[in-house]
């Protein structure tokens, strides 16, 4: 993978100055309109309250005029609100359009030497998620940013094993004690899986919440830091430790430092992975046309590749 400095210089050549200026000027215009719309909305609210007080007072000589409030409300309240909403959604549109425009170029630059596919609108099929140990139930299932990276063989040629991952959100409708329906998030984050051409000799869960039954036992390893940071369970400790070699343990710790909390499950012939953050997304206030956006894409791809490399180099997993 190319270095961050090299990446930044290539990114700079990818985006021309006029484009940045156009983006910045559109952003300034929006800010200007918002700076008028927001005080206007505030003033309208004040006027609306004052009018309500006047019309509802006992001295009012216009019986039934309260209904006129509705007609006042429409222009003086709804119009500035609509402007605000439209401008905010334009911001979002800009981000998506910009992402669509550059992401292919950026990914081909970062995944140099790897065989991969990316589709910003697609996501991992629900059948895969339903089959995984992360599934409990859901009513709504959606996602984005599907990436499929081919794990290379030792000689660098692409193998038949593919690491698929995408952002996923699964929610369910639940009724509380009072009978009110509320939406509960079942899954929200980055979900990945690999289908291997062989069956694992054990089931192994690292930081997995639901994978518990009587046959599973907690693994206590020789690495105290690993025991503190991870919760590993398995149905066959010897086979699990064949996979969890000291170097693998070290790499899992390093990966945790890089990407934060994650969970891995090896079951049957599949490896599932959950990471608690979204791919190629920034927090809303940071959706700016600047290097931070590109750095985020760099970091995400770098993290994906470190997982791929770990799976590739860990012959205990790959060559079982």
């Amino acid at each position: 993978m190319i270095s961050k400095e090299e990446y930044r210089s290539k990114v700079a050549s990818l985006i021309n100055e006029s484009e940045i200026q156009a983006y910045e000027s559109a952003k300034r215009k929006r800010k200007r309109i918002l700076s008028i719309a927001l005080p206007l909305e505030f003033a309208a609210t004040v006027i609306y309250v004052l009018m309500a007080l006047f019309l509802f007072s006992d001295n009012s000589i216009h019986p039934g005029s309260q209904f006129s409030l509705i007609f006042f409300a429409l222009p003086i309240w709804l119009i500035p609100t609509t402007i605000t909403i439209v401008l905010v959604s334009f911001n979002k549109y800009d981000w998506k359009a910009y992402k669509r425009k550059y992401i292919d170029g950026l990914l081909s630059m970062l995944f140099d030497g790897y065989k991969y596919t990316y589709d910003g609108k697609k996501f991992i099929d629900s059948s895969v998620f339903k089959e995984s140990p992360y599934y409990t139930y859901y009513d709504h299932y959606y996602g984005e940013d599907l990436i499929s990276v081919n794990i290379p063989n030792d000689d660098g040629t692409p193998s038949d094993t593919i690491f698929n991952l995408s952002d996923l959100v699964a929610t369910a409708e639940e009724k509380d004690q009072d009978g009110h329906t509320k939406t509960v998030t079942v899954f929200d984050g980055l979900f990945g899986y690999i289908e291997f051409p062989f069956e694992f000799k054990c089931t192994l869960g690292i930081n997995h919440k639901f994978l518990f039954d009587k046959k599973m036992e907690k693994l206590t390893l020789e690495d105290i830091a690993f025991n503190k940071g991870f919760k590993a369970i398995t149905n066959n400790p010897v086979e699990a430790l064949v996979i969890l070699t000291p170097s693998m343990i070290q790499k899992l710790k390093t990966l945790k430092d890089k990407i934060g909390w994650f969970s891995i499950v090896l079951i049957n012939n599949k490896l599932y992975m959950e990471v608690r953050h979204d791919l190629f997304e920034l927090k809303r206030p940071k959706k700016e046309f600047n290097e931070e956006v590109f750095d985020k894409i760099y970091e995400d791809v770098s993290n994906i590749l470190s997982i791929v490399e770990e799976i590739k180099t860990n012959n205990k997993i790959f060559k079982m």
Partner: protein
Amino acid sequence: MNKNAGLSWLISGLVFAFVLGIVFLCLWSFSVVFIVLGTILMLLSFVNGMILIGVYNKIVKHKNKINESLALIDIQLKLRFDLIPNLVETVKGFAKHEEKVLTEVIELRNQAINATNEEEIIEDANNILPKLKQTVLLAEDYPKLKADSLFLSLMQDLVDIEDRIVAARRIYDSNVTLYNSLIQIFPNNLISHAAGFKTAELIRIDTAEKILPKINFDGGKE
């Protein structure tokens, strides 16, 4: 002296304190002091009794885990012993002049499978390893043996078994480390000392993993 004598004394002391507490409570009509003392003695002996039971059971559980992990090593070593006759037979087909080494391996293997406890098995396994390495390394002098599919398959099985021996040994070592820290920390050390629990020792199991990578399964030398 019985090794659990200390524990018996500890339990007797707690029972005595509890009974004394009841006696004090029975004398409540003489003074309020008896009520206070009786309650304190009963509560203290009860709480300490609960701690004693909890810690004792925890130590026993960890000790059993050590025995379980020792059994895991035992299983893997037996798999290694089972592989040896096939390996020797295969090597014999190509290296008839190496009769001495091969006979020694078989003799040591037969001795190992007749061992009665885990310690003996581990000791025999360690004794057999140098000869096993010698047998495997014969492939370097006999190119046809090195290319033989049965030999390569046995080598792959040996690699898998060695991986599992290493894994089982790591489980054992982790359990021993956990157990030793458990019985050495305060106040567990008081109970473990009284109950006669002793620190467990890490065992030395030699594995063939270091020599096996030298055999290239494609038939060449790395």
